[in-house]
């Protein structure tokens, strides 16, 4: 966000066959960005020829070339351009297409439309500043805590205290207990591996992590949501693996896979799951629940990889 105020604003192209949606996004985004709109893929490609864009947001179902194909084509034509899909339909139905066209961000059209979330996602895509729970919390209302996990005992205790914290404050923690179990266990026991690729620690054993294996946990809330972020520095996830696993789980094929269930369950049980990956350096899983159910709708897909 810092970049915009001083330098040229980022340029965004919105592609949607529904004029009202184009205008809605334009009205909101033009406060911060330079925005153009196109009503179909053809018009979008023409616009791209004459103008440089940093990000293209496209609807999925449009007459002519559809969203995924359009974005695939745009990325092959304009290196470094960022893309995201936006849809009113069930995103789960499009995960396979997303996988095939390597699309990692699908934004749901919720009712009411979630402009703040759109803001965070777009900002992440444009600035490559993707890490941290704080990016998804409202700046002036946010309460945020950070902790490190250095042993299995830490993991247990922190998990309990986060869940307890949420429960005393909000009267609920959703399914955070289950999800945290899953994600923290993954980070402690499955992320660190030996040179030969086998896992270093035995699941559920009492262990102390090496100094470079620590796991960072952030948890916090603002007026409309609460969330947790788990970052490990040993994870080897890639966006392709995540997409592959989620797709297999949704299709019911991944049932017998040894991994991937945790990611799928977390996506299922939390209102929002955001996965941020810096290749071979760190993996962050952000889980967010909204207090109100108005943004529940369909589960989005947010995977960022640097």
């Amino acid at each position, binding site marked *: 966000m810092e970049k915009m105020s001083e330098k040229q604003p980022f340029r965004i192209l919105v592609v949607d066959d*529904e004029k*009202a*949606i184009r*205008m*809605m*996004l334009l*009205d*909101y985004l033009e*406060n911060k960005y330079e925005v153009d709109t196109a009503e179909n893929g053809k018009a979008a490609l023409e616009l791209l020829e004459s103008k440089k864009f940093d990000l293209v947001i496209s609807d999925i179902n449009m007459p002519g070339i559809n969203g995924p194909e359009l974005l695939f084509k745009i990325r092959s034509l304009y290196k470094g351009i960022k893309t995201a899909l936006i849809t*009113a*339909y*069930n995103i789960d139905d499009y995960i396979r297409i997303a996988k095939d066209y390597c699309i990692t961000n699908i934004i749901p*059209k*919720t*009712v*009411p*439309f979630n*402009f703040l979330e759109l803001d965070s996602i777009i900002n992440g895509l444009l600035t490559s500043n993707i890490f941290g729970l704080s990016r998804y919390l409202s700046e002036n209302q946010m309460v945020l805590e950070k902790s490190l996990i250095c042993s299995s005992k830490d993991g*247990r205790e922190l998990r309990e205290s986060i869940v307890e914290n949420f*429960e*005393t404050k909000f*009267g*609920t*923690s959703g399914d955070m207990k*289950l999800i945290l*179990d*899953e994600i923290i*266990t993954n980070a402690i026991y499955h992320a660190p591996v030996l040179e030969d690729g086998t896992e270093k620690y035995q*699941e*559920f054993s009492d262990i102390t992590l090496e100094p470079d294996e620590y796991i960072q946990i952030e948890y916090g809330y603002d007026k409309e949501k609460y969330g947790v972020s788990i970052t490990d520095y040993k994870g080897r996830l890639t966006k392709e693996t995540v997409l592959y696993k989620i797709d297999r*789980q949704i*299709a*019911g094929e991944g*049932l*017998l896979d040894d991994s991937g*269930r*945790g990611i*799928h369950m977390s996506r*299922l049980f939390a209102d929002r799951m955001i996965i941020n990956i810096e290749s071979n350096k760190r993996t962050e899983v952000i889980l967010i629940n909204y207090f109100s159910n*108005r943004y529940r*709708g369909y589960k989005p897909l947010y995977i960022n990889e640097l």
Partner: protein
Amino acid sequence: MNLLFTAGFVFVTAIVVLLVLYSRLQKKVEQLKQFHTYTERDVTFSDQIIISKRELETVFDAISELICIIDKNYRIVRVNKNYAVSVGIPIRSILNKHCYQVFKNRSRICDKCPAKETFKTANVATQKTVSYRCNDEVRYYELQTFPVFDETGGIIRVIERIRDVTEEKRFFEQLVRSEKLASIGIMTSGVAHEMNNPLSGISGIAVNLLQMPEKYGFNEKAVSRITMIADLASRATRIMNDLLHLSRKHDQANIKVNINTLLVKTVNAIHLEGITETEYQYDLENSLQPIDCDPSKIQQVIVNLVTNALQAIQEEKSRCESIGKEYKGLLQISSCRQKEKTVLITVSDNGIGVPEKNSSRIFDPFFSTRPTGQGTGLGLSISHKIIEEHGGKIFFERIDGLTRFSIKLPIERKYNV
């Protein structure tokens, strides 16, 4: 249906033949009795006839349908046992009464009486459904009438075959209803998806207008009206979502799954504290047929049951610790084939158990014995719903000090609409 009809026809023809034979035999017996010239040979012959008579009577009574034979005046000449049982009057009191009086409690012949037609035309006649009130319950019958001819070819009797079609009729009605519901469901989910797009536009624009009224030149009054638009769009969405939720059954995946693998994988994937101190016993039947199910849903149920069991074990453990009793948690998971087309899955634990007073409520939504915050109380009710949607059953019992949840799942999926 055609086949059924033909089968029925053949069957009834057989009865007609039997009855004709029977009445002739009876005549013969009477004749023999009258002339009473009993020789050795005659006695054997009459014995045979009596045996045949009994056989025929047995066959007549063994027929599950109601059989009633009437004469030209619609008076009952003969009925089978089932007829008497159904109308609730002993056979002796039925004979010689009018059929319409006995069966329908009428004083005149019924409208559209098929027997009347059979007497007139000598054809087989059918009346599709006749309602009959029996102990405050309306039952439905299908009536078919067959002519019985004398030697000269005139009709002397009519046989009424009365078939109880109540269940059939109800099943059919249910089928029609569920098909209707299914198509409404499919339509609803299509409409709801389509509506989401314009609704998100309406509400999105309204939200923009509300957040930046000066940008659009709106005053306070306009803002208050636009708030209404936004609220209405949200309400429309809630309605759509409710409808979607109702029709979601049709979106369910349906995959053939090896339930044992699913059980082991799922149980292994549950990470809960104290799990290492608990003994796991598996009793899984080999070579179980794969079952039709939505695996992620079934997995959810297993996660629920196992998590509950482990929590119960945890609770029992701390209870025992506090009174200095030795305790080791035990979790048993079993699967076996039950009957032809059902698989039984059980999850049992020796944990703290379900108090008697709660046992009838555990499947109720929001019923939880755990402190507020620990568990929504929805786990078991969701499990219940999922298993019902699979056409199965879930129940719990206490056996040998173990709390056991059992799931019965049909191997082939039946949809519950």
